[in-house]
């Protein structure tokens, strides 16, 4: 049980470092560590398949894509645009207000304080595959079309325009 609190603290700490560090490359690296702590959370929840997918898709693919773009555009701490201090303070206050609103809402709702008992069965690939291909077959196919469209769109967008003479 104490493992949860340790990992939660680490996740919040690294998420804060992600948004407060100045250098974008450091920011990406901190975000990778945050996703790693979230992967540990999935393992604690007995969601083994999601842990592996989070590891591969988020840490392996998406964050490497971010790092690749940052290095392609050659951005580092020197070229980082900074907001004025007033806007920063206002943003931080707005974030705090959001947290306060959430906590107040949960106090009013009084959700039950029962324990999360992770069922070892439901996180396995076999069980998830059964649900995915029985109840969610149509959304699964539609998501494949979404990914194809995104790929074509990204290639078209990033292609150099041919200059017409």
């Amino acid at each position, binding site marked *: *049980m104490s*493992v949860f609190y340790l990992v939660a603290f680490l*996740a*919040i700490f690294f*998420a*804060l470092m*992600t*948004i407060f560090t100045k250098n974008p490359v450091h*920011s*990406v690296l901190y*975000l990778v560590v*945050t996703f790693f702590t*979230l992967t540990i*959370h*999935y393992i604690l929840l*007995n*969601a083994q398949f*999601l842990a592996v997918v*989070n590891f591969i*898709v988020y840490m392996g*693919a*998406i964050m490497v*894509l*971010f790092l690749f*773009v940052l290095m*392609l*555009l050659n*951005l580092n701490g020197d070229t980082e*645009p*900074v*907001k004025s201090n007033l806007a920063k303070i*206002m*943003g*931080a206050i*707005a*974030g*705090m207000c*959001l947290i306060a609103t*959430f*906590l107040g809402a*949960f106090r009013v709702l009084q*959700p039950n*304080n*029962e*324990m*999360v*008992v992770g069922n*070892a069965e*439901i*996180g396995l690939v076999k069980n*998830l595959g059964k*649900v*995915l291909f029985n109840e*969610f077959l149509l959304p*699964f196919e539609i998501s494949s079309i*979404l990914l194809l469209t*995104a790929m074509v*769109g*990204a290639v078209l*967008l990033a292609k150099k325009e041919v200059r017409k003479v």
Partner: protein
Amino acid sequence: MDSMITQIQGVPLNHYIIFCSLIFAIGVTGVLIRRNVIIIMMSIELMLNSVNLLLAAFSAYRGDASGQVFVFFIMALAAAEVAVGLAIIIMVYRNTKSVDIESLSKLRW
């Protein structure tokens, strides 16, 4: 191994909700205080991930696998969003030579 599993489980659902809302609020704050478009997209990833974890926690709590399938769909959506978003950022950078969100005022009235 069995004792470890019983030790790591048994966290109240409340604590998962509070933890995920904290991460979500950090993501919102990141969108508000940064001007680099790429870091704003990373904050959005942070928000998506907090919601993912909460869905997985609810799924484990209810003993229903649908929540974990939703997480899978959100991950596919995030991958598509990142691919298109980064392509758009590269196009904007080629035209304006900056990733400053406040230089993107072309759609302003």
